[in-house]
């Protein structure tokens, strides 16, 4: 493993993290992406933009989110001291709102009046619909038809918020197809439309920009841990689909070599079954949706459908910065099956009275695996990226419990 002076300087001016990242988009979109990059660079150094964002983060989103010592979980596991970063307490119920707020304020600065988004579990769609309602912007959310069915509560929320939800019937009818369709919309409506991408993927500058907006998770965690324990945590752990909640937690700690960092991919029915969503464990580098990154594909370069119990992790790719952090060895990527996630979902609910999103349950599952082997003075932070209310009908169906019975 090569040890770099800093792991926080990427991407380069062309949007590359090692071999990953880049700007693999149609010419129609290229001028828009350059315009977005310019607008973001200007906003980044504008104190007024940051002040506006800080105001909404405090009073609208409800930040800072607590860093909570999970006492009963810790006792149950009998090892490391486990802290939960409570992103599920944000307005709209997940970390997604941190990024959407940043992008919507940017869209307003750019004079865009129509916002489009893709969504898998619906958390990003709900966050986007929410901020569009707040600022009076037209909102169109693309969602795979399969996901529309399995995440019905979120579809209704988006519609109540005034968004148009378009069920995507093409391809595998999940998140990747929703992203294709959003790109097709953007190519068609270039003049008035802002594409609000929900994760640290897509063409440059999205991976870096979304990471910057989500990094508030890690910055708060540093401060809160200093306050509570007087030092940095020993390990961080977060689930990774596209990887925005993980990148948000990880990035402020990348240059602290004493902090071990774990990302958790969705192993679905198991990596060896080919029914999974673990791009690093089961994929290889390729080009899709504007960036090079680890992808699930066949020998001809055709993208393979991902599978995960969690719609939010059901994507055949991963953010390019994660791919690079894997390649340079700074972050260790583990994976977690549907069953492990379901077990973790129930354990956290019973022990802490916190129902995690199925996405976040993947990270909890690895805490359950790692914590018992670690000493009692090991401080472990897990990102509780979203709450599980949206998943209750699905989990009830799997566990065979009829709601209300």
């Amino acid at each position, binding site marked *: 493993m090569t040890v770099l002076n800093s792991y926080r300087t990427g991407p380069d001016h*062309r949007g590359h993290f090692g071999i990953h990242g*880049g*700007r*693999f*988009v*149609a*010419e*129609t*979109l*290229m*001028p*828009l992406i350059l315009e977005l990059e310019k607008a973001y660079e200007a906003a980044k150094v504008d104190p007024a933009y940051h002040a506006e964002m800080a105001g909404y983060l405090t009073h609208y989103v409800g930040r800072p989110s607590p860093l909570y010592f999970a006492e009963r979980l810790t006792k149950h596991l009998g090892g490391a001291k486990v802290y939960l970063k409570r992103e599920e307490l944000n307005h709209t119920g997940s970390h997604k709102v941190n990024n959407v707020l940043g992008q919507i304020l940017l869209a307003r600065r750019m004079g865009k009046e129509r916002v489009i988004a893709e969504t898998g579990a619906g958390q990003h769609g709900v966050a986007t619909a929410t901020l569009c309602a707040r600022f009076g912007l037209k909102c169109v959310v693309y969602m795979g038809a399969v996901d529309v069915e399995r995440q019905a509560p979120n579809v209704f929320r988006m519609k109540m918020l005034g968004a148009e939800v378009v069920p995507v019937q*093409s*391809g595998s009818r999940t998140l*990747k*197809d929703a992203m*294709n369709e959003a*790109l*097709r919309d953007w*190519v*068609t*409506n*270039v*003049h008035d439309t802002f594409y609000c991408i929900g994760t640290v993927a897509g063409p440059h500058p999205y991976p870096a920009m979304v990471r910057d907006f989500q990094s508030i998770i890690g910055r708060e965690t540093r401060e809160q841990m200093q306050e509570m324990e007087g030092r940095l945590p020993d390990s961080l752990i977060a689930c990774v689909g596209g990887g925005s909640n993980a990148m948000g937690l990880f990035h402020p700690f990348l240059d602290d070599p004493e902090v071990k960092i774990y990302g958790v991919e969705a192993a679905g029915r198991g990596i060896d079954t080919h029914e999974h969503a673990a791009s690093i464990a089961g994929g290889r580098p*390729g*080009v*899709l*949706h*504007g960036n*090079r990154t680890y*992808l699930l*594909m066949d*020998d*001809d*370069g*055709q*993208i393979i459908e991902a599978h995960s119990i969690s719609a939010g992790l059901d994507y055949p790719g991963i953010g390019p910065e994660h791919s690079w952090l894997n390649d340079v060895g700074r972050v260790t990527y583990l994976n977690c099956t549907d069953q492990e996630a379901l077990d973790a979902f129930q354990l956290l609910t019973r022990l802490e009275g916190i129902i995690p999103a199925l996405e976040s349950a993947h990270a909890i599952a690895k805490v359950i695996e790692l914590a018992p082997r670690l000493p009692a003075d090991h401080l472990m932070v897990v990102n509780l990226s979203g709450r599980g209310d949206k998943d209750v009908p699905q989990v009830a169906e799997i566990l065979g419990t009829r709601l209300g019975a």
Partner: protein
Amino acid sequence: MTTRISDRFAALKEEGRPGLVTFVTAGDPDGETSLAILRALPGAGADVIELGVPFTDPMADGPAIQAAGLRALKGGQTLAKTLEMVAAFRGEDQTTPVVLMGYFNPIYVFGVERFLIDAKVAGVDGLIVVDLPPEEDDELCIPALNAGLDFIRLATPTTDDKRLPTVLANTAGFVYYVSITGITGAATPDANAVATAVARIKSHTALPVAVGFGVKTPEQAAAIAQGADAVVVGSALVEVVRRTLDEEGKATSNTVIGVEALVSELAEAVRGVRR
């Protein structure tokens, strides 16, 4: 150095007429039928052939070409088979230019170096790779030019005068002007706006300009061809393939004939345009 593409456009200029560029998806609905379509195109009046390389996630394409790609993949089409198809076509036709059009991932996974060698040997003349803008020229454009393959770039209504030189810098063969902001087979382009855009591009380059996206009928093709060196028709042709399939999605005796008939009509309309 002349190429099949430059020779063809020089011949069109000599004849004083615009050209017809036809797009079909390789392997749609199966390899054999697709090769038969390919072989029928020059005789029906296609001046340049664009052969679509199927990809699961064609983000710049509309429903018609997406569906054609999925039909081909279902039929077992691969990039290697597409190159074999071009080689088979070249066995009979030494003059009609063949341009592969698609997305980067299948080429990247095949291996750029190996792909360029195999494509050249098969008789491919040019490449249109939708998701490789000038900003990613190191990936394929520069190696392709070095290997003697034309890298044909898309210019779009969002490509302004300031950006146009960047887009044209490493473009070879011809420039493909995307007549609308949108996906293939969607809105119908406005012929006057297209003619103005083509004139704008021509003030920056000596390369021929072909215009495509949204051109469906012989009338539209003729109107667009008035102001361009060539007109590209794609979605309308793959729709003929779709409409002529049987209930199980297999080709029928009408599939090749149907495509041939529409190409003939398009060619007649385009050839009627005189300068």
